[in-house]
């Protein structure tokens, strides 16, 4: 392989300079891509945040529902016990009355 002569270097450099010129991308393409990038960068993070927020609200909602349900269950159960106790007491008193009357007749 022969080394390059000075005139060959000049000739090749000239040809490269004429051929490899900067081309301008279409202005429409540049603007569209910028809009797309900004939209993408903005939509990326808020979407994650939105998901986090939604999950937080779902957790809070589910927690509240479980809490209220437990409270209702506990209070209903207590009410049931109280009513049962009252009912049992009344039933016992009623059962006692006919026995007393029979004893008097005798």
């Amino acid at each position, binding site marked *: *392989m022969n080394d390059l002569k000075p005139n*060959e*270097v000049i000739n090749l450099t000239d040809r490269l300079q004429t051929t*490899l*010129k900067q081309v301008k991308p279409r202005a429409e393409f540049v603007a569209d*891509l*910028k809009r797309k990038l900004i939209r993408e*960068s903005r939509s990326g993070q808020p979407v994650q945040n939105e998901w986090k927020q939604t999950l937080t609200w779902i957790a809070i909602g589910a927690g509240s529902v479980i809490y209220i349900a437990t409270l209702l269950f506990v209070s209903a159960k207590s009410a049931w016990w109280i009513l049962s106790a009252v009912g049992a007491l009344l039933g016992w008193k009623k059962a006692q009355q006919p026995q007393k009357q029979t004893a008097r007749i005798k």
Partner: protein
Amino acid sequence: MLFKVKALSEESALVERAKNDAPAFGELYERYVTRIYNYVYYRTGNEHDAEDLTARVFMRAMKQLPNYTDRGLPFSAWLYRIAHNLVANWHRDESRRRVVPLEEHITHGLYTDAPEYVAEAREEERRLLEVIHHLPDERQQLLILKFVDQLSNAEIGAIMNRSEGAIKSLYHRTLLNLRDDLEKE
């Protein structure tokens, strides 16, 4: 020298801001879109693929920016690496599908002279572009950075992660390669 150091640190600050700030990324984009587009355009030889790949370069850069670490190299070196990888994938996929002809319009719009001169000059450019397209990747990159981006050997070295001397020697070998290939045709 001092100016370059200042410019690099200013760029690093902008890159750091761009990690969390869309307008800062927009600024980086505007700074480099033409250079990346030109690189891809000369590597693919057509406008359509150049636009598609340029868009992919910046989309990928935006997604990977949070993982970017400043190693004292220009930010463009990182962008060129992304572009280089995407172009390499594109060439691999294209070679599986078809042989890509150099698009006519790559040499359009430069002439205002007589038609016969225009035709001859176009033919010369087409031949040279074809020879350039057959050079190894790094030599193509060197020519694009040198003639399209008009960068110095030191700047090209920073982008290609080589010393200035290595770039000079690579350029010399590239010219030899070009001369021999043009003579062969």
